[in-house]
């Protein structure tokens, strides 16, 4: 099915749901569950992924009257997904405990080796994504929800500033500034981590 047929089929289903056929929503759910899951998995901790994915679809269902038929449903749903992920971090940030855990010497050594080789290929060969994920989660946990979302979208996923601004519903200027700041913070955090480990050693 090409994009246009998908769009018109989506618009038709949306019309059915808004007209009172609640069960028709299941077709949209089946069609886009993988797409939503792909986004949510990247932004949300593993144990909360299912919960947030559910929230995305419930929120989409409640917002269906605002969906304009000439928009692309997939794009519209992506926006809702990103904003739901952002809301998750905002809530999480409000009630979180200040992270005190630091990384081990093993991470420091790994990071030094990985950046020294300067090759993603050798990174794959070393089969140590676990350390990279732990370092990434450790650093992201120390950023504000805004910085975290912008960093993930622009720095890690490679979205343009304009695309990220559309997804988050922010101005491009705000995304640009946040992107610059969050990148600096990330580098600072990792540098500090390296220095701490070196001092302890």
């Amino acid at each position, binding site marked *: 099915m090409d994009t246009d047929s998908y769009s018109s089929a989506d618009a038709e289903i949306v019309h059915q*749901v*808004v007209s*009172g056929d*609640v*069960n028709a*929503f*299941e077709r949209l*759910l*089946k069609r886009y*569950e993988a797409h939503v*899951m*792909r986004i949510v*998995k*990247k932004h949300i901790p*593993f144990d909360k*992924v*299912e919960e947030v*994915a*559910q929230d995305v*679809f*419930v929120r989409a*269902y*409640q917002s*269906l*009257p605002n969906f304009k038929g000439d928009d692309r449903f997939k794009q519209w749903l992506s926006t809702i997904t990103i904003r739901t992920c952002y809301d998750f971090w905002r809530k999480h940030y409000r009630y979180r405990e200040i992270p005190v855990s630091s990384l081990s010497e093993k991470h420091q050594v790994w*990071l030094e080796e*990985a*950046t020294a*080789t*300067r*090759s*993603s290929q050798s*990174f*794959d060969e070393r089969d140590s*994504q676990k350390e*990279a*994920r732990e*370092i*990434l989660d450790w650093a992201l946990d120390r950023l504000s929800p805004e910085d975290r979302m912008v960093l*993930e979208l622009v*720095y*890690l*996923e*490679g979205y343009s500033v304009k695309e990220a601004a559309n997804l988050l519903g922010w101005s491009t200027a705000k995304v640009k500034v946040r992107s610059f700041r969050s990148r600096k913070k990330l*580098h600072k955090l*990792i540098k500090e981590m390296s220095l701490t480990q070196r001092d302890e050693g």
Partner: protein
Amino acid sequence: MTPIKHEQEALREILRLAYLEKEKVEVGDRWQEEVMRRIRELGEIEERPSSLVMLQQIVWRLAPLTCLLILGLTVLLSSSDFISGDDVIQLLVNGTEELTLNQFFEL
């Protein structure tokens, strides 16, 4: 590219790969049923009017009250010994009665 820039790029690539790895995590297949359960519980969607329409409704609902308020204030002002700012300025500029500010405020 400077060594620092080079190192930062290498770091970015490593973190990016680790980040994209998250996509491969397997999740359960029961959550979709939960979505539909929650949606059925919510029932049919009520089409809410847009915020602009809602604002218009509020404005028109308040219009008679605003008119009454304006009318009431006009009656109150005309029945009191009201002197407008223009009149005071006229008096001070023309000075026919040699009125001073002190006299005006009865000081």
